[in-house]
């Protein structure tokens, strides 16, 4: 007969969500303690896709380690690479040509849109609506096509190198990006009709997974998660890198702090990214796409820290150099890791369905958390 296993002494149900579960988008493993449908405790178990990237990077040269970082947060691989390249440049004190800076920022923003598109579809799927996923992929596919033409890959591009970018832009690049902007603008209203305005969606997301301003800071949340609680934490605004100081865009903040606020922040961020791309796409200056660097890069002895804003939040690249050709120690401060730590605080006392809704709007990418 059915045995009583997996229960606490109080009779609560312990349930494993993951490592193979549709809502965890990868191999996250959450151990839930449930009282009926109500969540009493959430305990993340990590490491199912841990590759020890930090240790790997210790044996790779400064040119080589950048490609590995595409495999952390694979949805914003350009931005990861960008952060690493910037950190190495900071150590080398290389001036990156204007053209390369423009290209980098355009690529970053396209990546951000692509990442948010995927999040939008996947989150709708978490909540039980399948159709948005495919609609989101239609637009995302256009971006990956643009990336493929210029960078040669669709997901893990490895396009940013210390000193600039790896290759010249594809001749069709500007045309393609403009046609993408057209497509995006024509389809954006659909997102609101299909998801944002829908009463079921709103009820599923409003006042779910609430995190206050102070808690968001204490938990080290960053990116859209913190901005939905009203924290100003957009690295692009606070510590501008490359040409972000020259472009006009708004830092989106909401005050709701719940899943719906996080949803709105991401949705509005896509529009802001489009705005940035529109400003830059016609004004890419002529010039080199890469600064002259030595064949073998050597960082001076010291510590270098670079913060960039990925689609999920603040990525920190911390390089400790001993003056050699490889980093002595490298640490990636991943946004998902800190955002995940706030999950238990968000969903305690809510239902299982809310866990999925809250997790969906955290936009977790598991390789980013495990590294």
């Amino acid at each position: 007969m059915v045995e009583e296993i997996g229960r606490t002494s109080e009779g609560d149900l312990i349930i494993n969500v993951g490592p193979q579960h549709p809502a965890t988008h990868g191999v996250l493993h959450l151990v839930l303690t449930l009282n009926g449908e109500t969540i009493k405790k959430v305990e993340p178990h990590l490491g199912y896709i841990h590759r020890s990237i930090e240790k790997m990077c210790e044996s790779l040269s400064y040119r080589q380690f950048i490609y590995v970082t595409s495999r952390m947060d694979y949805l914003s691989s350009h931005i990861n690479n960008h952060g690493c390249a910037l950190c190495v440049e900071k150590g080398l004190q290389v001036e990156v040509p204007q053209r390369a800076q423009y290209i980098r920022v355009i690529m970053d923003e396209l990546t951000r849109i692509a990442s948010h598109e995927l999040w939008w579809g996947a989150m709708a799927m978490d909540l039980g609506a399948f159709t948005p996923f495919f609609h989101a992929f239609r637009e995302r596919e256009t971006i990956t096509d643009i990336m493929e033409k210029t960078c040669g890959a669709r997901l893990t591009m490895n396009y940013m190198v210390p000193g600039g970018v790896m290759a010249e832009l594809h001749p069709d690049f500007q045309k393609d990006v403009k046609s993408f902007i057209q497509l995006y603008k024509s389809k954006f209203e659909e997102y609101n009709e299909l998801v944002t305005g829908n009463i079921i969606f709103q009820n599923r997301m409003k006042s779910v997974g609430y995190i206050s301003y102070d808690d968001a800071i204490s938990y080290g949340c960053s990116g859209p998660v913190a901005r939905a609680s009203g924290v100003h934490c957009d690295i692009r605004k606070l510590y501008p890198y490359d040409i972000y100081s020259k472009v006009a865009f708004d830092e989106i903040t909401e005050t709701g702090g719940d899943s719906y606020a996080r949803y709105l922040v991401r949705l509005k961020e896509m529009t802001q990214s489009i705005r940035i791309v529109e400003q830059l796409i016609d004004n890419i200056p002529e010039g080199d796409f890469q600064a002259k660097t030595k064949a073998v890069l050597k960082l001076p002895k010291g510590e270098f820290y670079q913060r960039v804003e990925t689609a999920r939040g603040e990525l920190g690249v911390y390089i400790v150099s001993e003056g050699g050709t490889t980093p002595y120690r490298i640490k990636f401060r991943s946004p998902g890791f800190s955002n995940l730590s706030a999950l238990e605080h968000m969903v305690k006392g809510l239902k299982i369905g809310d866990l999925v809704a809250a997790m969906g709007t955290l936009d977790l990418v598991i390789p980013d958390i495990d590294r």
Partner: protein
Amino acid sequence: MFSLEGITTVIHEWLNNHFSPTLALLTEFILVGLAAIALFALLGLGLVWMERKVAAVMQIRLGPNRVGPKGIFQTSADTLKLLLKEGLVPDGADKFLFNLAPLVVMIVAMLILAPIAFAKNLQIWDINIGVLYLSAISSLSVIGIFMAGWASNNKYSLLGAMRSGAQIVSYELSAGLSVLSIVVMTGSLSIRDIILSQQNGWWIFKAHIPALIAFVIFIIAVTAETNRAPFDMAEAESELTAGFHTEYSGMRFALFFLAEYINIFIVCAVGATLFFGGWMPLHIGHWQGFNQFMDYIPSSIWFLGKTLGLIFLIMWFRWTFPRLRIDQLLNLEWKYLLPISMFNLLLMTIIAIMGWHF
């Protein structure tokens, strides 16, 4: 002209002429049973294919398109695959109940077929309490789901079964009330009488806005009762992986899967019967010419057309809406649907008493 009308009468007379009455009756039993099973298989396969196609086009995809023209045999191939698969029973499962559960769900789905009129004079069992029978039997399927959830020895299954129980018990109420509003109009529980009462127009047109409201509530409630998105709390694959049938594989899973589609067919057939006149062609008051023209279309086509239309509506819901949360689901029933349908029943009663309908 192609028609299923009177086909039963022909068979009945032929059998009675050639065999003794007992043997004839027995043969009829067997024939009906076989027909029901065949219908089952066909409907299941057809509806799964339809669902996949509808979903695909709404999701700007092509859907199944490799096995047969337009992928029409895809579902047969899938069923064949499921038949050949090993049916696993998890460790610590209650084996007897585990095996029984899909059968219960299946048998319940089959039982409801009995009073449904597929065409003029084509009805398995013209029972005088048809509507009552339908609502009574349809709520039995929750027992099968409960069994599956309990016997699987899996916490996801258990949660799914618990949700399903809460859901079906609640939504049974408003489904029953909206069915009752049509019963009030006709004054009969028999499916045959209900259809005949729509001789001069369907109830959804004849009984003004209250009938429309009753219909909307009915569709919402039956979507919930059949565990379909946006009310698929029992499955909720992004929350409970697959809910009550997480541990099922092979043929047992196929039975659950088929039963889901049969249930959709049945509730849509009931909806078509109550609100759209079943096999009754579209008649408008005293427009003799128009009515006669409509009669040329066979009654079976009318019935199937209406039912498929409603099935499409339910599929449309599924591929548009996200899932509700369990407490919101119950809120919707107890705070919105139930009060509205009770008020609506009152209105319908007044309309029926005063004779304000056409």
